[in-house]
């Protein structure tokens, strides 16, 4: 049987369906009027009065503003926290939600660098810098400033919390331990360094 052959029954059904029922203009007018009455305009919104100046804000506008502010807040917070140097990738294993949040916030704070002051006494030095594992023992990154007494050198640098090995480079060539700090011997090379424990002040 060919698909192109006319089907008399089908043609009749289509013909019946094409005949629309007569439209009642009164009914149409009633529907249009009801829709017009139900329309909400700006004047119909509930109003909050804000402040002594009498400035007002409409409730749906307020909700919209609040939603926009929340979205902006999440974006800004994400941008700020993504710049923290230490990444905490662990998940809270089985704590409550509030505990999990507290731990994540606390972890982030615990890993961020802390300003640490170093003080060294040497009246004869021309230059002194702090070198340590925190600056890859590079003497150019943390030069110390001579104080007014000409003998005390100091510098403040950010260091991540924990135990660090360091020393002072005097006149760009003489590595000197900190006489105030404990010493430790390098397990691989046998040479000594000073130890500082960095924590929150």
């Amino acid at each position, binding site marked *: 049987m060919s698909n192109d052959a006319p089907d008399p029954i089908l043609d009749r059904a289509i013909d019946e369906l094409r005949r629309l029922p007569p439209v009642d203009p009164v009914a149409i007018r009633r529907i249009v009027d009801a829709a017009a009455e139900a329309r909400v305009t700006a004047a119909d919104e509930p109003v909050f009065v804000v402040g002594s100046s009498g400035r007002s804000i409409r409730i749906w506008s307020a909700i919209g503003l609040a939603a926009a502010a929340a979205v902006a807040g999440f974006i800004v917070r994400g941008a700020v926290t993504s710049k923290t140097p*230490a*990444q*905490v*990738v*662990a*998940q*809270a*294993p089985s*704590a409550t939600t509030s505990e999990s949040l507290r*731990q994540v916030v*606390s*972890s982030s704070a*615990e*890993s961020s660098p802390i300003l640490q002051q170093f003080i060294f006494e040497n009246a004869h030095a021309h230059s002194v810098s702090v*070198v340590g*594992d*925190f600056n*890859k*023992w*590079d*003497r*150019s990154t943390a030069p110390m400033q001579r104080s007014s007494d000409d003998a005390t050198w100091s510098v403040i640098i950010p260091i*991540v*919390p*924990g*135990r660090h*090995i360091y*020393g002072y480079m005097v006149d760009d060539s003489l*590595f000197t331990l900190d006489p105030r700090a*404990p010493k*430790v011997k*390098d*397990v*691989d*090379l*046998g*040479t000594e*360094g000073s*130890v500082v*424990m*960095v*924590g*929150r*002040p």
Partner: protein
Amino acid sequence: MRSFVVGLLLAGATAHVASAQDTTLIAGDRAASAELSKIIDGARANGLPVEPILAKIGYAVNIAHAAPPRVVAAARATVARLQEAREALAPNPTSNDIAAGGNALSAKVSTKSLRDVRMASGNRPVAVPLGVLTQLVANRVDEEKATKYVTDLIRRGVTTDQLVALGNDVNSDIVLGTKANNSMDLRGSHLTAVLGVPTGAAATAVDQGLQAGAAAPPPPGRKKP
């Protein structure tokens, strides 16, 4: 001049520059530089933090003035410790945690102690607790005792600054003549009392730790100055 060149190149390596530039980590020794470059690249590819490796190279070249083969050996040893520390501090240690774990291993702290600290800390950073533990062990406090105190204090909610103060206090005591273990007991038990009794699961864990631990601390044996 040599230090300057090394500093520049280390800075370049930190900034993930091309391997071609890493191959001159030690001026004048292409073979050692290439070997170091391979070690750094391998560690990076393996997901290990490279900062401690670069710091070790910087120390070996600028401070210890070690010969190139010793620099390479030191870098290799550092990578091995970082790898071991990462496994002990699983599942999700931070770069700082791994570096602190590597330092702890270099001070002869065992991987068991690293795991104990991780278990007591949950998902919190362990760089400071491990640093304090490392320093206590370096100061000749028995490792088992030091680990027990540190983990118990963590479970009681000790803060990082309290832990750092504990480590510094023990160090000061030792400098003044107190025996390391006596100072640890004195300072540790005092801080334990200050922090009070933990609750819930933490209390059970602490109780188990105390049962497995040493007897009550004896008075410190401080020498007269």
